[in-house]
């Protein structure tokens, strides 16, 4: 689960990771009030969406007067912000963060992520703040410092020294930077974060380290023990259909093609999409109905897939293991009674009792249900049906 910059900074504050002062605003009026509350004579108006690259996309602007805060807030609120992470459709901005200006002397990068190979968190730091870390990693990998932290010992002072010396910090800056990194690591562990990025982490002209930006992604599996994080969920950032699917225990991702897919298991679901692509078709979605495909999950799956009007055919590809295929076949028949399915449905059931299942579907004699013998046959038929071929 992802959160906004302003929410990430709330968490930073609780862990004594310094951030500029700021307040969230939902209207230009509120934006001006926030700026007044902050005082000073320079503010930053920042669009709050779940994507990076906001500055380049025109979603982060400097204001030098309250009038300018008002103008910029009204421009940014309600704009559709397109960045390299939003896709071409962009994201609608519902709120802006009003932050005090900071005197920047230097910009660094600091992040914490899971190193899958080492199976422990790794702190990543670079002097090239403000740049995309992927680009830095590509062009000058020697400028990136990576320190893995064994969770059994946690963040130790020597980890901090490795970072500080690696970044070439001045002697008098070391202890405050080490404290910064140590506090951030504590937040990462205690909140079950998957990824934290501060880009840029700035050194102010008065020599303090401040998180000018903040991104946190959390481990969904650990949300059960973090109701305070769950409460930060912003539903407007989530795709409606994907959300509805997850409420029913299905995993759905909308794509741009016209062959709807309903599959059990994430790997087979991806494999089904790959097969459709390979045969010249385009999948309309990824949909994993999970381990227990029954009438209810199949019916919900049909409903969600059919909300996408690009869908011209549906490929139901189920490998029945513990759940027997004859039961799934009956589930599919029942589901077609619950939902009006008006496109060809190609059904491939394999595994336990597959023969009986094919018999059940055949005897039901439903016009738009077409039986496939295996994965390839099913994908072929689904692609043909989506192209308007009569099967």
């Amino acid at each position, binding site marked *: 689960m992802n959160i906004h910059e302003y929410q990430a900074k709330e968490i930073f504050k609780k862990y004594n990771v310094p951030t500029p002062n700021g307040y969230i605003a939902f209207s230009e009026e509120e934006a001006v009030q926030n700026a007044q509350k902050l005082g000073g004579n320079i503010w930053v108006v920042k669009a709050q969406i779940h994507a990076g690259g906001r500055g380049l996309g025109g979603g982060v602007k400097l204001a030098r007067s309250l009038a300018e805060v008002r103008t910029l807030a009204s421009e940014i609120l309600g704009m559709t912000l397109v960045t390299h992470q939003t896709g071409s459709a962009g994201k609608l901005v519902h709120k802006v963060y009003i932050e005090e200006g900071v005197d920047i002397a230097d910009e660094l990068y600091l992040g914490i992520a*899971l*190193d*899958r190979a080492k199976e422990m*968190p790794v702190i990543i730091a670079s002097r090239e703040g403000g740049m995309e*870390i992927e680009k830095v990693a590509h062009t000058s990998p020697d400028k990136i410092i990576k320190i893995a932290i064994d969770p059994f010992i946690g963040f130790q002072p020597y980890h901090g020294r490795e970072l500080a010396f690696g970044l070439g910090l001045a002697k008098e800056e070391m202890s405050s930077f080490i404290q910064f990194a140590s506090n951030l690591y504590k937040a990462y562990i205690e909140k*079950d974060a998957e990824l934290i990025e501060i880009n840029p982490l700035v050194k102010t002209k008065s020599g303090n380290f401040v998180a000018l930006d903040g991104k946190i992604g959390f481990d969904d*599996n650990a949300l059960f023990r973090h109701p305070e994080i769950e409460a930060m969920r912003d539903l407007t950032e989530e795709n409606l259909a994907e959300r509805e699917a997850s409420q029913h225990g299905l995993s759905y991702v909308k794509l741009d093609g016209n062959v709807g897919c309903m599959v059990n298991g994430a790997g*087979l679901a991806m*494999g089904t999409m790959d097969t459709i692509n390979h045969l010249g078709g385009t999948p309309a979605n990824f949909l994993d109905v999970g381990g227990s495909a029954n009438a209810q999950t199949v019916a919900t799956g049909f409903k969600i897939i059919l909300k996408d009007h690009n869908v011209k055919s549906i490929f139901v590809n189920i490998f029945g293991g513990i759940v027997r295929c004859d039961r799934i076949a009956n589930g599919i028949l029942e589901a077609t009674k619950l939902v009006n399915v008006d496109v060809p449905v190609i059904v491939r059931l394999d*595994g336990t009792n597959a023969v009986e299942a094919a018999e059940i579907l055949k005897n039901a004699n439903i016009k738009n249900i077409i039986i496939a013998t295996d994965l390839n046959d099913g994908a072929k038929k689904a692609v043909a049906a989506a192209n308007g071929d009569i099967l």
Partner: protein
Amino acid sequence: MSILINKDTKVIVQGFTGKEGSFHAEQCLAYGTKIVGGVTPGKGGTTHLEKPVFDTVSSAVKATGATVSMVFVPPAFVADAVMEAADAGIELSVIITEGAPIRDMQLAKAYATKKGMKTIGPNCPGIITAGECKIGIMPGAIFKKGNIGLISKSGTLTYESANQVCQEGFGISTAVGIGGDPIIGLSYIDLLALFEADAETEAIVMIGEIGGDLEIQAASYIKTHITKPIIAFIAGQSAPEGKRMGHAGAIISGSAGTATEKMAALAAVGVHVVQTPAQIGTKVAEVLKK
């Protein structure tokens, strides 16, 4: 021969009396797996599925001589269960549970390694040695005995490929679902080494997917250590790029974890890489009949 488990392997079930644990333990018993008991704290001294129930793993191990545990406890308790098994001298823990927090698994895996206990999973279908022993939730009937070793991140793709392999007239020696979580137990390299050393296994089917770089690591291991033919499929060539906020996870390994990248790395070391999962069975036949 086979790898890791066979007809003599003694297994206990952690989370034995729960709904999932009960159902699948019964299926495993029906397959012939030597389940010698189970652990459910507070129910020690009772009997379930005609097997003894223990309060702790150590008492279960002492009484039964079990060497493998199959874990069905809920996600919040997985790490605890795995560490308890490691402490009790279990040699292999097969973790079926889906949804264990990553932080917990870091600790559990590290502790298991320290204690010399192997783990499989979490979030996986388990392991099966065809015709001998099934420790997991896979449909046993599709795994006919034979000479193909199978390693897969995905559950249903394990079934799909085992089914195709068997329909081509071949069979499975041992199949292992390693799970697709960020922190997993035995991985490609460990299992490739075991299959290479297993006299019964003639060829290996390897199923991977997008994310991480385990398949890339496996490729460099294959180059220098594996002589048996490998047939591989990587799921997710057509998957859109994840809705990740940043790519800090990927820069650690210097790889983006795409299917294309993994397929190229495997093909470069002589692995027979197929484009779709529908081609696995025929490719196995083609490679072995050469």
